[in-house]
């Protein structure tokens, strides 16, 4: 069992979760595209109590030269949690965790962006977590995808970050902070919503094959929902520009 906090009650007697959600219910997701005027593309995502802002710059010449790839672009991604994003102040700057998340997120994005169109270039993606509850890496992926589309970077598909997990031997969708801290397993995924391909998968804790499959189903369903919100945010941006012009 993960964490070893077996005595924390995470499911209510009526079968709902502590915040009143059903087992397969997501937290509320809101997305805005194009919020940073200076960036080539940007996005703001609020997922439950998580808030992430993402800015995309480029493609530009890759510096330092040693990171250049002769046949494709590299994605230079920086994931960072703001010092004020949690109740305990986070020491500013890179740490082991943010370095890992930057790396896996960049790799997930590289599989959707048509990087071969821009040899020797880099695409700079900056994800800043302003408020953290649980599942910030997924929120970061969702935000980065919208910001990349907003920047006009060619992509095979959008990508959605979403997580499921296990609490009290029950599979639940989209863990909140208590469930993440005291639950038994966590399965964040980066999903390409139109094709259902998986670009990113991590697992923390143990899941049986049945539980894993159920998590997959939950994630796929949630990915479709978030994808709708992503598309709506991108399209709404230009409709609102219509009215505001």
């Amino acid at each position, binding site marked *: 069992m993960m964490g070893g906090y077996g005595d924390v009650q995470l499911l209510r007697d009526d079968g709902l979760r502590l915040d009143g959600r059903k087992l397969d219910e997501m937290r509320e997701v809101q997305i805005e595209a194009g919020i940073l005027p200076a960036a080539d593309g940007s996005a703001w995502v609020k997922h439950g109590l998580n808030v992430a802002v993402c800015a995309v710059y480029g493609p530009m010449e890759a510096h330092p030269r040693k990171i250049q790839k002769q046949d494709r672009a590299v994605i230079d991604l920086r994931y960072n949690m703001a010092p004020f994003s949690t109740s305990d102040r986070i020491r500013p700057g890179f740490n082991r965790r943010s370095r890992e998340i930057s790396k896996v997120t960049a790799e997930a994005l590289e599989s959707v962006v048509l990087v071969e169109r821009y040899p020797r270039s880099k695409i700079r993606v900056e994800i800043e977590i302003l408020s953290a509850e649980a599942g910030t890496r997924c929120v970061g992926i969702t935000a980065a995808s919208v910001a990349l589309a907003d920047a006009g970077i060619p*992509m095979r598909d959008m990508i959605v970050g979403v997580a499921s997990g296990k609490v009290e031997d029950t599979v639940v969708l989209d863990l909140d902070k208590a469930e993440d801290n005291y639950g038994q397993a966590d399965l964040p995924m980066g999903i390409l919503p139109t094709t259902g391909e998986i670009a990113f998968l991590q697992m923390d804790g143990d899941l049986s094959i049945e539980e894993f499959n159920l998590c997959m189903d939950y994630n796929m369903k949630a990915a479709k929902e978030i994808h709708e919100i992503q598309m709506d945010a991108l399209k709404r941006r230009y409709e609102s520009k219509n009215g505001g012009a």
Partner: protein
Amino acid sequence: MTGAKEGAVLRLVTPGEAIGASSGARAGTGTVKQGQDIISTKLGWVKENNGVLFVEPIHSSYLPRSGDLVIGIIESVRNNLWFAEVNGPFNGLLPMSLAPWKVEFGAAREHMDIGDVMLARVQEVDEAHNIVLTMKGVGLRKLKEGAVLELPVNLIKLIRNDNERILNVFKESSDCRIIVGDNGRIWVDGSAENISMVRAGFDLMNNIGHQENVFDSINEFTKQWRNE
């Protein structure tokens, strides 16, 4: 707008959206074939021209192609060549032999220095995106007066559509000399007041460039400006 049916409502698509069957049409820019479908790779409007389905992006970056007319800003100078920033991912290289002057080795700085603006053509782009510029050609020169404005690259095509219809409106109403570079930079020369009118017009285009009736709005805008 090329290929757009008159009055037809354009469809706005996001990356990954299927826009048609690969059997029916050919995949143009901003799209890729995936199995049975043609899918969009960019956020933009779906258009069709002669059986080619393409997506006109709302926002795109400049990728140089040979023959493009560009407005560059000199970023560094060597003994026998200049490097110019051309609004793309890589700097363009202008060798001494392709400059319009007879330049002595080591005297490149006397003709163009860092920060100078020039009108050049893209001579060559190789597969690794190395860009060679040339200033040998009619009208290519160092730009000494006027202002350089910027527009999103995807609007450059719009400004030139239908025999430069929108550009001509700007030229006639403002009495300015205007040169449109393919890299999203536009050189405007005239009185300060007229330049600021063109600038305001481009700002308006930036806001409404994705709409259907850009020409009418621009026309209306310039008339209003004249009357005030």
